[in-house]
């Protein structure tokens, strides 16, 4: 489980102890963001595509009830078994029951942030079922006993030397070999064995089409297909917000997804699963887990348009310098910070504050979610509902008092400038979070009002 008691600031502090690593993490993600820019700018219709994608998603949310029924009907006609899970617990139970019915003890799983959100792996382990994550990045963090730190690049926080060590320990590769090519080849051999032995495969879902009852799964590695086409049981797990109305809409989303995610024109594989193959069982688990509640929050429902490209993380100055694990939730970064408080306001009350509100996330979002505005709105909800720390609430109250009374404000300013001049140690100390990693500026001799009073006549 990755619920922790420490908040984002504390965990980010920990991540920031190794400055060289933070810089490397920051630069690597910025490089991915720059690749996204180059490919987006090469397409003159990019903004029209974003706008169209956004409107399709808005339509999907507005008709979600009917589209879900249509999807269920089509998928059932196609020979799939459709399950409905109200929450994470029910999702995990449904998956476990299917696997137990088939006597499955070991499964291969391709990337699914939903199963991370539901903590499926530990649930299955407790039921005696071993999960092999097959996306290379996910396998690496699984061997390291860590959650993914990024939804598209799960082990972006890891150095190749650390991965070499992990592979040496778990896969028997030679000690000290950290060559990405060599390590990838070793993982290919190791996971091929798992694919060939597995009786069941779990995949995520990128898009589910109401019109046809089919699901599209995108990977670069081919792991979802290797799993699903060899196993006799395929379980596809998806949040109810993955529904899109029609097949032709895939054209819009597949053009945006990989370009926004990693700056590539499309993922190597965009697989359209419609019917189980002969002799195979196909199960689709539709999961709510708070999504219908988020749908009812007018200010936050747009977060359900997300197609999980990760562009908002790559561009976020806070994410890049604090690392995915500091968000202590399955989906990190700006989008995670507006999704998580819906799941648990108390546990995730810190996340909407882990932002500078610079708005870069909203600018790169392929479905035009107003991410930074939702972060700002969540802050207000969280303070109102009493989920912020006592110190923050008290200081905000004081600030509010000072800022709403001009005379108090003037006096406070004067006192502040005097304190900073006379006793710089009062502010330049570790008790003041603004002092971290920077010197406080020299106090100005006068306030702006004083300066204005003096200068307005001379002009």
């Amino acid at each position, binding site marked *: 489980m990755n619920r922790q008691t420490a908040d984002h600031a504390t965990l980010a502090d920990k991540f920031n102890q190794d400055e060289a690593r933070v810089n490397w993490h920051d630069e690597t993600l910025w490089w991915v963001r720059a690749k996204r820019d180059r490919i987006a700018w090469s397409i003159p219709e990019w903004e029209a595509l974003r706008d169209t994608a956004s409107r399709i998603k*808005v339509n999907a949310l507005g008709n979600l009830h009917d589209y879900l029924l249509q999807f269920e009907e089509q998928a059932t006609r196609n020979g799939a078994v459709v399950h409905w899970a109200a929450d994470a617990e029910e999702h995990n139970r449904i998956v476990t029951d299917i696997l137990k019915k088939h006597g499955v003890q070991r499964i291969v799983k391709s990337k699914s942030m939903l199963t991370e959100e539901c903590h499926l792996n530990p649930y299955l382990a407790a039921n005696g079922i071993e999960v092999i994550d097959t996306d290379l990045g996910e396998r690496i963090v699984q061997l390291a006993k860590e959650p993914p730190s990024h939804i598209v690049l799960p082990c972006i926080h890891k150095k190749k030397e650390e991965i070499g060590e992990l592979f040496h320990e778990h896969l028997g590769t030679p000690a000290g070999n950290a060559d990405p090519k060599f390590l990838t080849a070793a993982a290919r051999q190791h996971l091929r064995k798992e694919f060939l032995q597995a009786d069941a495969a779990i995949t995520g879902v990128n898009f589910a089409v109401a019109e046809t009852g089919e699901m599209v799964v995108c990977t*670069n590695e081919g792991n979802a297909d290797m799993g699903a086409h060899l196993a006799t049981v395929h379980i596809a797990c998806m949040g109810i917000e993955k529904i899109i109305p029609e097949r032709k809409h895939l054209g819009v989303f597949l053009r945006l997804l990989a370009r926004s995610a990693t700056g590539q024109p499309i993922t190597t594989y965009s697989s359209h699963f419609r019917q189980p193959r002969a002799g195979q069982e196909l199960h689709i688990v539709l999961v709510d887990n708070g999504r219908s509640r988020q749908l009812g929050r007018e200010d936050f429902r747009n977060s359900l348009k997300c197609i999980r490209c990760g562009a908002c993380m790559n561009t976020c100055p806070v994410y890049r310098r604090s690392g995915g694990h500091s968000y202590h939730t399955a989906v990190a970064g700006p989008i995670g910070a507006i999704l998580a408080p819906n799941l648990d306001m108390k546990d995730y009350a810190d996340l909407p504050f882990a932002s500078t509100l610079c708005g870069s996330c909203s600018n790169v979002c392929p479905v035009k979610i107003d991410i930074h505005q939702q972060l700002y709105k969540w802050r207000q909800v969280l303070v109102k509902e009493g989920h912020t720390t006592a110190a923050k609430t008290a200081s905000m109250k004081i600030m509010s008092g000072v800022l709403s009374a001009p005379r108090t404000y003037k006096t406070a300013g004067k006192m502040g400038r005097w304190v900073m001049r006379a006793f710089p140690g009062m502010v330049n100390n570790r008790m003041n979070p603004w002092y971290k990693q920077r010197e406080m500026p020299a106090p100005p001799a006068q306030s702006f009002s004083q300066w204005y009073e003096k200068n307005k006549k001379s002009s």
Partner: protein
Amino acid sequence: MSSREKILAAVKQNQPEASALPALTGLSGNMPGTLEAYRKVLEALGGTLFEIENETAIPALLAEHYPHLQRIITATGPERTWINEDPHLLEDVDMAVVPGQWGVAENGAIWLTEQEVGARVLPFICQHLAIVLPRERILPTMHEAYDKIGAPQTGFGVFIAGPSKTADIEQSLVLGAHGAKSLVVFITGKSY
């Protein structure tokens, strides 16, 4: 109330007012649906392309460029006994030659379905993959591709764009993750 009813009721109550779907017109920009445009993108993805008059040229080209192949499967060939066998038995396929339906110039992707491929796992489990595509089947963007593909005719279909790859280790691009390690596209037909 079952979870299904509970979820549907909550969605119905909470969903916003319905809005109209946008038209998908004018989204293809200035992308040309030409072989040259397609080739450029495919090569950037790490694939190779050969122009041939017809499929009879394929064996010689494969022998020249992949000298160590043991098991080669041609999906459209006369010996298709493997399509009724356990798909696990395809694990030793070195090269699979499969027909593609449509190619997309903007991203290098080719649309295949299980009907032509024979076994769904074939284009993934083979060490190397060759796709045969008629010259006139290259389209500019995904929009034209979905227009041409239309409603699904088979249980499984896939767009494949280049060889399988990963950049999960320090963002270093490595070809050959779990699927085919290389991709060669044979474009058939006369160039006029």
